[in-house]
């Protein structure tokens, strides 16, 4: 059922994206003619006919959706490659960045939240509050640039840009370590916003759960502090955090665009940036489609995680 809804949603996204791109002034023909140094109406019409842009809107839309269903996202004249190939080349880098940032932010955020909920007036708690304030208010590109200056220029521990060092050769592990080294700063930058969100929320829910009746029951059973907090309380405080994390998936992806730009990360974000400048409509549409896909898959994963954590969610919908 969920999967069915997801497919419908994806179709709706396709229609909307396409319509909006269609409404925007200017099209591929304009850009192509510009890159050729200008052209007259006749040539423009010729280009439009070549790309099928002279057809009525609904025909174009139908064709586009039909193509997408066959996994054909069109051809990028700018990169001279099929869009699908272009995106699949870039997608892994973005997925790596997004998932690592999201999972680390969740994991560390929850741990910080739990620690600070147990001692609401302790040092750790104030640290979380400060961190959250910083995470909320600092713009991603600014954090990224500061980190670059600090850890790539002043203290040279991390590489400045890119995802791998092409001068390195060796086995799997050599490359693995190389990618990880490149990954550290972008992940910290992207994760910091979400870490702030998750640690605040898990602190709040954990404090509420620690005051609940079933935690009192757990204490009355004579269980150890560790069991009370990490078995009985934690599992209950996870649902809101997971829900939020699911909702944030789209924000993580749009955040990734900025982070990728700062760190020249070879992912979808950089591609999106370049293709918007180049008015490369098929590529933009393709990227929008894939981001929607990632968000929808992320939401499905969120649902699964919620069911795992809370039995009351099972057997519904």
């Amino acid at each position: 059922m969920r999967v069915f809804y997801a497919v419908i949603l994806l179709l709706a996204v396709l229609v909307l994206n396409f319509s909006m791109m269609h409404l925007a002034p200017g099209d591929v023909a304009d850009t192509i003619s510009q890159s050729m140094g200008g052209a007259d109406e006749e040539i423009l019409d010729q280009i439009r006919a070549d790309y099928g842009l002279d057809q009525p809107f609904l025909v174009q839309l139908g064709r586009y959706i039909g193509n997408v269903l066959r996994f054909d996202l069109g051809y990028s004249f700018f990169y001279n490659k099929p869009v699908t190939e272009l995106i699949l080349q870039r997608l892994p880098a973005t997925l790596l960045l997004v998932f690592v940032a999201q999972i680390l932010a969740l994991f560390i955020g929850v741990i910080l939240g739990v620690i600070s909920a147990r001692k609401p007036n302790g040092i750790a708690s104030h640290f979380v509050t400060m961190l959250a304030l910083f995470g909320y208010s600092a713009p991603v590109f600014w954090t990224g640039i500061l980190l670059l200056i600090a850890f790539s220029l002043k203290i040279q521990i991390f590489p400045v840009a890119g995802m791998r060092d092409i001068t390195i050769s060796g086995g799997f592990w050599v490359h693995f370590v190389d990618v990880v080294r490149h990954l550290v700063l972008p992940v910290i930058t992207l994760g910091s916003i979400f870490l702030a969100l998750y640690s605040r929320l898990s602190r709040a829910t954990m404090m509420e759960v620690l005051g609940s009746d079933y935690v009192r029951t757990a204490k009355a059973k004579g269980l150890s502090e560790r069991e009370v907090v990490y078995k009985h309380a934690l599992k209950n405080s996870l649902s809101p955090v997971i829900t939020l994390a699911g909702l944030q998936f789209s924000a993580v992806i749009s955040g990734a665009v900025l982070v990728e730009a700062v760190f020249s990360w070879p992912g979808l974000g950089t591609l999106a940036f370049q293709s918007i400048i180049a008015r490369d409509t098929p590529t933009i549409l393709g990227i929008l489609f894939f981001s929607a896909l990632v968000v929808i898959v992320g939401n499905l994963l969120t649902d699964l995680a919620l069911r795992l954590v809370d039995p009351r969610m099972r057997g519904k919908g």
Partner: protein
Amino acid sequence: MTAPLLKVENLRIELTTRDGVAPVIDDLSFELGAGESISFVGESGCGKSMTALGIMGLLPEKIGRIAAGSILFEGEELSTASEKRMREIRGNDISMIFQEPMTSLNPVYTVGEQIAEVLRAHQNLSKSAAWSKATELLDAVRIPNAQRRVNDYPFQMSGGQRQRVMIAIALACEPKILIADEPTTALDVTVQAQIFDLLNDLKRQTGTAIIMITHDMGAVAEMAQRMIVMYAGRNAEQGPVENIIEHPRHPYSRGLISCVPHIMATLTEERHPLTEVAGIVPSLREFGKDQCLFASRCTMVSQKCLDKRPPEVAFADGQKSACWHAEAV
């Protein structure tokens, strides 16, 4: 006479509130023999639950503390016992069931796990042994189809069934004392009767002493041998249940009893019009005052009541009343 199982002496529990420190329990003493049932009675905010939490060592952290007096369990001082020792006692020697069966069970674990857990913690049972014992216990608290329902989550059970699960958890390690804090308040009347029956049967089988906290006089008459009437953190009256119901020696006990029409009807065969104890329990700020705290609501109030806190007056059969006019009541 053998030493009592639980002996509470001059207990004083203080809560830190915005207005300062208030003694929510002030100079409370009572004893509980092995296998005995006593009831704490009183309106909300009289310190009944605080007494229970004090015995369990579960007073709200940093807010509540035992300021004076002692709690002796089999001769062992609990008020100063280490947290580690208290954990060994909780759920094993002294266990507790709570008012709210709907929220007292953890929603994300099966009831079987929640019963088995306490067995693993205290009796070193293996996972599978604890699980099969949990099934037996579920059967013992009369949940039909225990074999299957042991895998249920709390949300799949009714309020009465959840309270049975709570009882199964509390009695899993065959504790010497069971504290039941208004165990039936949230349940409807027919279910209440079933729970009382169950508790009485289990008590007969295991010899567990029960401390029952309630404001339901019917429950007291059904469950307890002795009762302690509490008012504003203080002991108002204590003694055998029949004696107090027949002849209360404190205006507050008398007021509480006259609020329950059917008890009067069966015990004295005459019906009184429905009455209430006018007024409300004083606020925490008043609790420490050296006067009778019931004075503001009492029909027998005199100047003496406002000037000095009344001492406990003893009557025959162990009935004790903290009232200046106890003889006259």
